[in-house]
């Protein structure tokens, strides 16, 4: 049987400065155009090399996916995952190589694409369905099902701009979920929406796979990868470094990446140029003796620090830490200027090198693996940089409350609470 997806030597070359700087000026391009013959001659003399202003976002990617397979794709930020998805969904063309796809590619990253706020829920279902490639008759047939799934029956003739964000998301997801594509691409849906919504997404993904459709699942969430996929591809700097059964691939990824070293450095090419003037340097996990560690004890305080540079003064900057479990449950979010006094004091940060550090008190986290994300933004102005899964670490609960019972304990936190026992007569 023919594979559903057959990729052969896929490559995508980007001109740097094209995306970040966006629009070239007209005069620049006229010069370019006029000097084209000259450059052509030069190119004949010296065969084309990968010049400095281009970057291979993806290179030499070859793989097959069989019908009904659930394939995981993992890799760090900038490894080429989104580029691969863009090629698969035909949003952009490859620079080299070939891709053969049997059937329709649907994607949960398109949720709500093309929704128009002025149109009603009913109208948007039809419009969005058409955008996703459904025929009118097909949408009409599934209409009731879509409405039921979205749970917005009462408001189906209300403009979606009056919807709450939850209703909006549910309706959008309902349409995408009923597309019934031969190939479904899921990209980090787990990062958006509430827990209920995430469960619904995962449930729908499981259904799709059982129906014999093919699923490509891109995620930073290793436990979801392990749970849902059979095989996983690891991308690194645009190349495919491994394709293996998922448990093996996850082990390799966790071992090879810097994800378990207690310290995460950002190379220059990993930072999107849209982050400027913010430059992340490193995120570190330190124990209470200020040693870099990759696992901490829950009974001792530990520190998280972010080192970064500002190329120009920045107003209103806040550095945020997101702590999540590997099951993508949020533990907390905290910003370095949460304290009003700190916020006043650091309204303006001059250019320079900084460390924002916080201390996590003892007796807070339960044992297990956690993932630390970082974010740099100015509230309601701009987000400079974000890495949702910058650093992973383990918490060891030795000495924590209740450890004399060997049973695993539910819950993200494991606080040492003040108990009292009274005997009532």
């Amino acid at each position, binding site marked *: 049987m023919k594979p559903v997806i057959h990729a052969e030597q896929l490559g995508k070359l980007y001109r740097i400065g*094209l995306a970040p700087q966006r629009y*070239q000026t*007209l005069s620049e391009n006229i010069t370019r155009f006029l000097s084209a013959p000259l450059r052509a001659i030069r190119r004949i003399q010296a065969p084309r090399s990968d010049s400095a202003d281009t970057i291979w976002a993806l290179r030499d990617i070859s793989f097959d996916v069989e019908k009904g397979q659930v394939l995981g794709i993992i890799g760090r930020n900038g490894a080429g995952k989104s580029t691969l998805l863009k090629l698969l969904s035909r949003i952009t*063309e490859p620079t080299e190589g070939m891709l053969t*796809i049997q*059937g329709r590619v649907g994607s949960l990253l398109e949720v709500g694409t093309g929704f128009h706020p002025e149109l009603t829920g009913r109208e948007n279902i039809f419009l969005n369905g058409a*955008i996703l490639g459904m025929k009118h008759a097909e949408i009409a047939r599934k209409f009731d099902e879509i409405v039921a799934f979205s749970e917005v029956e009462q408001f189906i003739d209300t403009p979606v701009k009056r919807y709450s964000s939850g209703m909006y998301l549910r309706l959008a997801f309902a349409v995408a979920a009923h597309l019934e594509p031969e190939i479904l691409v899921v990209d980090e849906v787990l990062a958006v929406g509430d827990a209920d919504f995430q469960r619904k997404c995962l449930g729908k993904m499981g259904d799709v796979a059982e129906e014999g459709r093919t699923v490509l699942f891109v995620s930073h969430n290793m436990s979801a990868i392990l749970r849902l996929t059979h095989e996983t591809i690891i991308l690194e700097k645009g190349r495919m470094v491994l394709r293996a059964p998922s448990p093996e691939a996850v082990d390799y990824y966790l071992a090879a990446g810097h994800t378990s070293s207690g310290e995460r450095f950002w190379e220059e090419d990993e930072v999107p140029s849209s982050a400027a003037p913010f430059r992340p340097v490193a995120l570190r996990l330190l124990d209470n003796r200020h040693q870099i560690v990759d696992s901490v004890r829950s009974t001792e305080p530990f520190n998280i620090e972010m080192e970064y540079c500002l190329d120009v003064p920045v107003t209103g900057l806040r550095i945020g830490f997101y702590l999540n479990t590997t099951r993508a449950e949020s533990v907390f979010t905290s910003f370095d200027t949460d304290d009003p006094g700190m916020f006043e004091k650091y309204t303006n940060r001059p250019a320079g090198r900084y460390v924002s550090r916080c201390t996590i008190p003892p007796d807070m986290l339960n044992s297990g693996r956690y993932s630390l994300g970082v974010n740099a933004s100015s509230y309601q102005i701009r987000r400079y940089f974000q890495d949702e899964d910058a650093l992973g670490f383990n918490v060891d609960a030795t000495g924590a409350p209740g450890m004399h019972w060997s049973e695993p304990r539910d819950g993200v936190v494991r606080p040492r609470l003040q108990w009292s026992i009274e005997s009532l007569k």
Partner: protein
Amino acid sequence: MKPIPPVENEPATIVVKPSRGWAALNLSALWKYRELLYFMVWRDIKVRYKQAVLGIAWAVLLPVINILVFTFVFGVLFHQNQTSANYPLLSATGLLPWGLFSGALMRCSISLVGNTNLITKVYFPRLIIPISSVLSGLVDFGISLLIVLILMIYYRTPLTWNLLWLLPLTLLVVITALSVGLWLAALNVQYRDVGHIVPVLIQIWMYASPVAYSAGLVTGSITRIVYGLNPMAGVIQSFRWAIIGSDPPGVLFIMSVVMVIILFVSGLFYFRRMERTFADTI
């Protein structure tokens, strides 16, 4: 990118590979997505008059205001000597195709940039976007046409079979707007300068077309040839002829058609060539 039409129950095979040079037009893909085209036009029309107190009444008011302004400025202030008696009708016949053309061109040139989220997230033939933006002007055009018909009855202009020419002529206006619009929309993806140029371009273009005056005012063979390079010149003149039976379309019209064909074919191919990098550059 060449989808082969699906066989019964067999999913279509899609081959994605880099296209080089001038890509084929691939009109079959466009045909497959005709329902989307319909929905996009419908969306544009539906959304245009939402949350406006006067709603669709604007489609009546704007052309009427335009006709009044033109009549006052050109008919009264500048005393257009020749046909001042029915100048409102003269300007209305010019404004009718011009309104369709300028509106369509304006929307078309910003259509791709305005739909960035669609282009970067979903695949469909990109031609759908500019085509739908042009077609969505047809409802307003129909309303303007009614106003012209009312004016015709008011001025006791005989209704002739020539009016049937309006059908192919309207198609010609749509294609002209689309041809220029394709160039501008594709250019706008890369150079946002286009957004600043278009309003000025439309204004200059209007004065270069027989909207406020009759094409008969342009005399001299050389001048007329240069004038004919403007495809809208012949088209508007023909509109006027079909409605009020002024000077019949001749060389000017033929030149217009030739210009439109050149612009249309080149626009289509330029668009197809640029299309493959839209998602990367937009």
